[in-house]
């Protein structure tokens, strides 16, 4: 820890003691606590680091005038100190230090006598609720939350648990479970869980480790075990009592207790779990019978959590299974569906239960579409109830619950499914047809529901989502044509919402991706699909155009498939007739008025062209036009999105290109992209430009380490630099300079956007690592680089000046350079290796790695702020209402 902080911490504590109200802002204490927590978390002893804290805690505990925020802070701090066993011991033995109070400050509450105080350890005093009640401070929720969080922090070890049991803190903790303040109640909830978990972990250690423990220790653990069981009994009694819902006003309380119970049952193991379960079982049964709608979900969580860890033959298990069956046979369809969904999500091992849940969840789909998914007799009563429910507007939510659980249903083993998955796909397709405004298809199912679901985009989206998932199921490839027809209808429908269109496109990609055989797509189907896509590319809504463009890109990347001519082919060829269709559409989209669409079309073009780049086929005139257009976007577009996409286009091209050097257009474009990109106003564009530079850097100096760990390493990698290697490096470096990589990096390292400067710095270090050890200072190995822009030059010079008081501008360039590019003594030219050596890149990196506000955000700054604020407030004429203007955070 910073020694400066240690030295001023006692003064800060003093300030806090005297007047808590003059803090720079109300988050100061939180930040102080965060700092202490960080210290404690690093493994260092908090007390060793800040010895003054105990004194502070013991003083505040008696200073009622401190204000509730300081008291609350102190309570939490006490917890933090006591969380370590050493700190706990100090707090336990430390008696109240009876320093005389400062004049004019009421140090003691009148009701606490001297003798009382002297007998009391700080720990007992701070965590004694009566102490605060007597002082009249307990009413303040701020203090209660401090107490409870302090308690939670301290409960980390057996000593603390002993203290907790002996001080009988379980009673106040249970009282706080139903506290009027939501935050207090919630924290009390978590603390209770913490108590039980600690009990469990300590008893299990006791059991396992008892052989190694000495007698003395064992006797202690017997005592503590008694304490623990007392706590557990009390908690169990409390839970049992509070689970039952006596009146509807206690609903939120019940929900909270159920959540706590569910959490405990998941986290605790036997035998504690058995104890808890036994205690609450009767109450749970009672609660299930009252079947309150709002409690269905938390109740199911509890039952399922309890059920998951039990052996099949235990009595509790059988009772729980009965409860589950009861929940699945309630009279309220919505609740039954919730319960069934919970069963499926919990991956219950009971096959009968999960099969029944799947039937329940599929029932609405069966009723609405008339596609018989289920054996009618099995769910007759529920069928009647749900059919009634579906005639109302609430049918939307029921259908959506059904659809959103289809992924879970498809995960089930096929022999447990009520029907083949193909049947489910048929039903979902039927539902999609019913939802489509333009379709005139009618179902054999519930007619009344059609009026609510037709054109309802929520149902449409859920159904499309389900269809996406169903593409993975076995044996459904047969219905590809039906799926394709429905999706085309959605893409064609003028009433489709843009989000529905997007989902439809995703579904097309998904289904095409999993179907290796697209021979079923006839010319007629394809024509319809092409028309729909073409139309959406001209849609009035930019979202629709954007999804279309994105789709074209994704389709370009889809794996190959088989067409109706039995040939291996690209899906985009089968569906859209290939690049001759997509590329012109995407080219048009480059001129779209919406920048998102322009950006998407650039990425889609990159995706579409990637295969031809990989094959290294010669560029067509069309592709050259595209490159020109993308460059224009990078130069002229007013929106960052489009420009970022433009840089990424070149990244994609460069990474896909099998031999970049033989692609003249790429090599011609790169320098312009780099110089333009690094000078962009948008920091993300600059960062992407540096990524492009990185790619070039990696290609110029490939990583010598082998691609897999067992590969044979060539001897050359270990040899000292030889002339040939040097000349290779030299030519690579010259290439980099010619492409503008080095000047882009030098430009980037002085950029005012930290992420850009950081990235550039890292890349320069990489370059330095490769180049500098090999290259000497000889004149013939010097490579000069031209820097664009005077400001860049100045900045580099400044850095150089800071690194070393000499300039490295090549005065001797005329004699050194033979190629003639740097023939004149150009003040804009720098020697690359020289610059790399002189720039203190490591120092720069360490600065850049820190966040830009690291100074203002440091603990020292915080402590100083507190002191300054206190000093200001003690000045005569200080107005507490006047906000202090501090450059703090």
């Amino acid at each position, binding site marked *: 820890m910073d020694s400066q902080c240690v030295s001023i911490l006692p003064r800060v504590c003093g300030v806090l003691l005297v007047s808590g109200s003059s803090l720079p802002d109300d988050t100061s204490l939180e930040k102080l606590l965060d700092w202490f927590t960080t210290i404690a978390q690093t493994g260092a002893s908090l007390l060793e680091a800040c010895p003054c804290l105990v004194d502070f805690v013991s003083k505040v505990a008696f200073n009622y005038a401190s204000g509730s925020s300081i008291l609350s802070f102190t309570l939490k701090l006490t917890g933090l100190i006591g969380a370590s066993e050493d700190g706990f011991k100090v707090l336990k033995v430390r008696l109240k230090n009876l320093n005389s109070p400062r004049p004019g400050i009421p140090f003691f509450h009148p009701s606490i006598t001297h003798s009382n105080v002297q007998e009391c350890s700080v720990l007992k005093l701070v965590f004694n609720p009566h102490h605060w009640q007597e002082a009249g401070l307990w009413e303040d929720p701020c203090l209660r939350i401090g107490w409870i969080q302090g308690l939670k922090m301290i409960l980390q070890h057996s000593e603390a648990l002993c203290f907790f049991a002996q001080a009988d803190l379980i009673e106040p903790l249970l009282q706080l479970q139903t506290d009027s303040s939501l935050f207090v109640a919630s924290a009390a909830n978590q603390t209770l869980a913490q108590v039980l978990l600690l009990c469990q972990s300590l008893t299990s250690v006791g059991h396992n480790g008892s052989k190694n423990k000495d007698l003395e220790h064992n006797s202690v653990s017997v005592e503590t075990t008694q304490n623990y069981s007392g706590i557990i009994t009390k908690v169990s009694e409390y839970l049992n009592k509070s689970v039952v819902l006596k009146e509807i006003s206690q609903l939120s309380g019940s929900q909270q207790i159920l959540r706590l119970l569910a959490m405990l049952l998941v986290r605790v193991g036997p035998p504690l779990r058995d104890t808890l379960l036994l205690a609450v079982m009767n109450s749970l049964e009672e609660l299930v019978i009252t079947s309150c709608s709002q409690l269905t979900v938390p109740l199911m969580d509890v039952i399922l959590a309890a059920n998951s860890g039990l052996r099949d033959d235990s009595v509790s298990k059988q009772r729980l299974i009965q409860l589950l069956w009861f929940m699945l046979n309630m009279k309220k369809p919505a609740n039954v569906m919730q319960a069934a969904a919970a069963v499926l999500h919990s991956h219950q091992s009971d096959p009968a239960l999960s099969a029944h849940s799947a039937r329940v969840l599929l029932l609405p789909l069966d009723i609405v579409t008339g596609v018989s998914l289920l054996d009618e007799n099995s769910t007759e009563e529920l069928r009647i109830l749900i059919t009634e429910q579906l005639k109302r507007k609430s049918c939307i939510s029921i259908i959506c619950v059904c659809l959103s659980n289809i992924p879970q249903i498809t995960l089930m083993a096929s022999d447990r499914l009520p029907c083949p998955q193909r049947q489910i796909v048929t039903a979902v397709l039927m539902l999609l047809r019913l939802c489509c*405004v*333009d379709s*005139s298809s*009618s*179902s054999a199912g519930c*007619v*009344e529901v*059609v*009026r609510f679901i*037709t*054109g309802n985009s929520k149902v449409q989206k859920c159904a499309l989502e389900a269809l996406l998932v169903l593409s993975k199921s076995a044996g459904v490839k047969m219905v590809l044509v039906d799926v394709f027809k429905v999706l085309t209808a959605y893409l064609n*429908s*003028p*009433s489709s919402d843009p989000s529905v269109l997007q989902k439809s496109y995703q579904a097309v990609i998904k289904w095409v991706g999993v179907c290796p055989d697209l021979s079923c797509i006839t010319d007629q189907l394809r024509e319809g699909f092409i028309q729909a896509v*073409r*139309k*959406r*590319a*001209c*849609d*009035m*809504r930019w979202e629709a155009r954007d999804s279309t463009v994105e789709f074209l890109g994704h389709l370009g990347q889809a794996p190959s498939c088989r067409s109706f001519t039995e040939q291996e082919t690209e899906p985009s060829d089968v569906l859209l007739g290939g690049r001759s269709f997509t590329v012109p559409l995407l080219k*048009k989209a480059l*001129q*779209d*008025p*919406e920048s998102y669409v322009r950006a998407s079309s650039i990425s889609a073009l990159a995706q579409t062209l990637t295969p031809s780049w990989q094959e290294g086929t010669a560029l067509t005139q069309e592709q050259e036009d595209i490159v020109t257009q993308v460059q224009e976007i990078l130069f002229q577009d007013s929106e960052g999105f489009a420009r970022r996409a433009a840089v990424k286009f070149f990244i994609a091209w460069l990474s896909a290109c099998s031999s970049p050097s033989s692609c003249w257009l790429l090599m011609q474009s790169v320098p312009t992209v780099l110089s333009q990109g690094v000078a962009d106003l948008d920091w993300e564009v600059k960062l992407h430009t540096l990524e492009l530079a990185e790619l070039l850097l990696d290609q110029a100096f490939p990583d010598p380490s082998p691609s897999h760990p067992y590969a044979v390493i060539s001897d050359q990698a270990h040899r000292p630099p030889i002339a040939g290697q040097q000349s290779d490096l030299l030519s690579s470096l010259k290439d980099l300079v010619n492409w503008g990589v080095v000047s882009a990096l030098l430009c980037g390292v002085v950029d005012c956007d930290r992420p850009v400067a950081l990235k550039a710095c890292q890349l320069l270090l990489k370059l330095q690592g490769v180049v500098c050890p090999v290259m000497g200072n000889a004149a013939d190995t010097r490579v000069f680089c031209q820097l664009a822009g005077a400001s860049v030059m100045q900045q580099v010079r400044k850095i150089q000046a800071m690194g070393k008081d000499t300039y490295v501008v090549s005065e001797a360039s005329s004699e050194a350079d033979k190629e003639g590019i740097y023939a004149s003594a150009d003040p804009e030219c720098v020697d690359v290796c020289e610059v790399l050596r002189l720039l203190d890149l490591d120092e720069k990196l360490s600065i850049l790695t820190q966040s830009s506000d690291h100074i203002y955000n440091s603990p020292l700054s915080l402590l100083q702020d507190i002191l300054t604020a206190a000093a200001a407030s003690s000045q005569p004429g200080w107005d507490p209402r006047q906000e202090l203007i501090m450059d703090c955070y």
Partner: protein
Amino acid sequence: YCLSGHPTLPCNVLKFKSTTIMLDCGLDTTSVLNFLPLPLVHSPRLSKLPGWISKDGSINLEKELKECAGRVFVDSQPEFCLPERELLDLSTIDVILISNYHCMMALPYITEHTGFTGTVYATEPTLQIGRRELVNFMERVPKAQSATCWKNKEIQRMLPGPLKDAVDVWTWKRCYSMQEVNSALSKVQLVGYSQKVELFGAVQVSPLSSGYSLGSSNWIIQSHHEKVSYVSGSSLLTTHPQPMDQSSLKNSDVLILTGLTQMPTANPDGMLGEFCSNLAMTIRAGGNVLVPCYSSGVIYDLLECLYQFIESANLGTTPFYFISPVANSSLEFSQIFAEWLCHNKQTKVYLPEPPFPHAELIQTNKLKHYPSIHGDFSSEFRQPCVVFTGHPSLRFGDVVHFMELWGKSSLNTVIFTEPDFSYLDALAPYQPLAMKCVYCPIDTRLNFHQVSKLLKEVQPLHVVCPEQYTQPPLTQSHRSDLMLELQPPPMPYKRCSVLNLPFRRRYERVYILPELANSLVPSEVKPGVSVATVSAVLQSKDNKHTLQSVPKAPPVAPSKKRKRVMEEPPVTMAPKPLLSGVVPLEAFLATLQKHGITEVKVEETADGHILHLQAEDTLIQLEEDGTHIVCDNNEPLRATLRDLVLRFLQKL
């Protein structure tokens, strides 16, 4: 009386309070789909179509009927299906109320040659745009030969459908003449929104904004105690006209509902989007777009939408042509009727800026308008382009020319936006057709969802509507949401139905003259209720009823030549006082006793009491609504008893 079978082109007659009011006179023009298109220039394709001969060869109508792609068309001047004219005597109609210019195309048929002498009420934009539509319509239907042989029942039965199934073909009529249009329109009297027009003192009619088109209106027809609302062609969408006035429709006894959307499943927004994307798609591919449309109405919204779309779709250089005999005036009129526009557009007028963006399109030469394809248009015509022209039926007008011109290329597209005609039927005589066809019907009129919301809001006691609205459409029988579901169920009507509207006419308002009112002497019969007798003369004139003082007998002229007694003024006698009140039994018995009648036997009956005066052998029946004294041959006793009863009653 329902005279039209078409729910969106209504023609109904309402007899209400001794007035006969015609509500709209729409013309069903779908009959023209049975005719061949009338090209502007000679079409070799059409003239080469084979004539129709019955299978057995017995009937040869080669000159009248032509076959095209398996369908038979009448080769003559198109004819229209008129509103029913036999159901009631059209000369008895007092007024015709017009809702919007679509619903007045049959006006000349009603007002001319039927003996009609009444008045037509319409708003100014309705009249002006309607005049243009009528002229446009009339001018586009050229005078050519007419065919009648096929109408023979025996022959018609042999024809293939849909001609075979056409009903009342003998009543179909040719288009009216300019003179008839002028004469019909001269009977129109202009009204403004919420202006109240008295009809013979019996009813008041008043137009309300219906939000559908410029000057479109719904009508309120009300008497003092009854209110009928007529809702025809209304829209709740925020397009160019003034928004719909819903609140004035409240508290109606009967609401007559017509003119709902013809495309309940097509959302106008979606269709506009569809229209724009198809247009852009065609232009980008180098094709032309043809939009068959009317010369006003939805086209303003289309142009506005295109105005925004042109830039974003990079269509800035594509020419847009609007060809119609009234194109110029239609575009200009729309800019003039500021007071009839929605608030947003009204404010622009005061800036001053043209309220519709098509003004800017015209200024920047992106939109050009021509009266016809002859003249300037032919010299400035550039392709690819977008052409808006009529008529949407594709049977007459400039559109026929473009269909013949562009039909052979699959690059071109025809986009139908008007919902009045089935696009497949419209295209039938152009088959085979390579041109792409897109159907984006844009109908901004109320849909069923909006109607049910509206009715919930205005709560009429009864709803009367065309029967088509009471069941789902035939093609989508499962869509129970595409019909009106109301409680009580709406009263359906169809062509030629006569409905008795469920009015309970109980009261009539009668005025009383101040001097007569002054002379009344009211007496209170129970708290808050006073009664007075009135002697007056009831004068009824123009359905207004007034009570006037009885004229005093004029001094008898000193003449000895009185010949007839009848001439004497009636002798005015003071009316007998009216009695009211209840005879209290106990008090009455006591009074009887005072008058020496002691032996009284009281019997209770359902309505009162019977007193048996045993000694006098007399019965007195005291009942709620009458008192009877049955006393034979003892007049003095009866008089005494009568007086005793009268003592307890009030006299007015």
